[in-house]
């Protein structure tokens, strides 16, 4: 129902073609990983899928509707977007930053209506932030900041969650923690898309993979279909082995 379908999308930045005739589908109830080398167009594809970057050609459908036909505010209520290394500039409290996620739900005038307060508490609880709700965000560690921003994104319970490199700059434990939270959103029936470089996490937690290379679609399908020695080696131009490891598998890069 809230699948995102990107069809024949081309994006140009000056003379450069950043995305060339890309087709991709992000299904609801699935955690889709967007992978590929640096500069492949992952962030651009995500921006296009959020409806924030209008493509030069092609179209984006959300459910049965064109994304351009959905109003700015309604779209903001239905989908949340976390850009790379999301942060806040002023030492605002964690609680207030999370409350900013409800901006599209606010009435035209006045402050936060009382019926939205439980939503903030719920998001804080889900992200283990209750103890630090009054701390300024600029005083948080990387992992705490990532959780705060995640809580900001899910506080309005959006159908669609699009996250650009959520694990960048995080240690393994916090990276796993973030991806588990994304996994839980997908299991709760939402459409979740993440651009990510950590292939081990993709292998273990994602359902579907979209691989980009040089602005073109390189491969797309389930994790089992895309995460193969041949496809990954060709995608990254290095020898990649997918090594079975008990119930899951691991990725090894060879020279």
């Amino acid at each position: 129902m809230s699948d995102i379908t990107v069809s024949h999308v081309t994006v140009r930045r000056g003379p450069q073609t950043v995305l060339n005739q890309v087709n991709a589908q992000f299904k609801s109830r699935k955690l889709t990983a967007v992978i590929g080398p640096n500069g492949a167009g992952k962030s651009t594809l995500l921006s296009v899928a959020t409806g924030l970057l209008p493509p030069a050609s092609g179209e984006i459908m959300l459910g049965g509707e064109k994304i351009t036909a959905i109003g700015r505010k309604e779209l903001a209520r239905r989908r949340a977007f976390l850009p790379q290394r999301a942060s806040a500039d002023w030492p605002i409290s964690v609680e207030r930053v999370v409350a900013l996620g409800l901006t599209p739900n606010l009435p035209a005038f006045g402050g936060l209506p009382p019926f939205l307060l439980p939503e903030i508490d719920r998001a804080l609880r889900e992200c283990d932030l209750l103890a630090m709700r009054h701390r300024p965000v600029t005083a948080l560690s990387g992992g705490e900041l990532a959780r705060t921003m995640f809580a900001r994104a899910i506080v309005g319970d959006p159908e669609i969650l699009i996250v650009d490199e959520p694990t960048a700059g995080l240690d393994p434990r916090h990276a796993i923690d973030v991806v588990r939270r994304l996994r839980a959103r997908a299991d709760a029936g939402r459409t979740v898309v993440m651009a990510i470089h950590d292939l081990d996490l993709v292998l273990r937690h994602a359902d579907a993979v979209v691989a980009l290379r040089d602005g073109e679609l390189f491969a797309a399908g389930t994790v089992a279909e895309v995460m193969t020695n041949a496809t990954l080696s060709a995608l990254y131009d290095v020898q990649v082995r997918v090594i079975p490891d008990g119930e899951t598998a691991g990725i090894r890069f060879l020279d």
Partner: protein
Amino acid sequence: MNRWLVPLLGVLVVVTACVSLLAGTVWLQPAQVLTSLLADRLDLSSLIVSEIRMPRVILSVAIGATLGLSGAVLQGLLRNPLADPGLLGVSAGASLGAVIAIYYGIATSFTLATPLMGLLGALGTAVAALLLSRSGGTLSLILAGAAINSIALAGVNLALNLAPNPYAAYEIMTWLMGSLADRSWEHVQLAAPFILSGFVLLALTGRALDALALGDAQAESLGVPVARTRLLALIGTACGVGAATAVAGTVGFVGLLAPHLVRPLVGYEPRRILLPAALVGAILVTLADIATRVLVFGGAPMGLGVFISLIGAPFFLWLVLHVRKRTP
């Protein structure tokens, strides 16, 4: 504390405004001010209150509030604690307009020639900044503003350089130092519509500023029209600060300082800074205006802008060091 901040500042604005009515070369008693306001008499104290001090007080409150508000809006919009209305070239543009009026002698043709030209200069620079930064983001707005600021200041210096006689140069210098002396109801009438509309436009940006604390991309994803907010802030600043500079000359530091004074008291939230910053700006300019009337050094009155910079700059330095210690 937070709940009482705005009422407290409001009371302080009223108190300083009342003191401003009393203070000056001729000190008045509160009773004299009251009777001159209520009764329709034509003695000296009534004339001083109704024709000289009243417009001056109204201008100082309005100008201070506009500078404080636009400083708060611009710091929130550009996510830069050093942003102030001067950054976008609006005040320099107003100065250039006014200086041209003085230089070419248009100023002598009618009373409001200087402020009118100042207003034109401010609106002109704002339009130029807007056109130059149309396609880019926040950074290109800052850069375009800085470039226009330099061009306008160069124009002002050129006028000083080529001034036809020392008197013209002196007049330009005095104007650049900022002052509220000899401002009349005509000045109030000229500035009021622009300052009021500027105030409304700037106040409309409040909620967008909160979301912009997360950066342009997140704000946009939350449904905030970032480009429109930028437009509102720029036009609001051009109207408000343009009109303020046009009638009072250059008054720096208030726009920079006022938001910093109240920011820690409202939890650093950009929207909640707006009203307190406007009130603090009004208090600062009114107090400084009283000081320029009361403190006279060697016969020459001190420029309003000079006084504020003199007091404001060291205070700002202290504030920066103090804030750095408390917040990471």
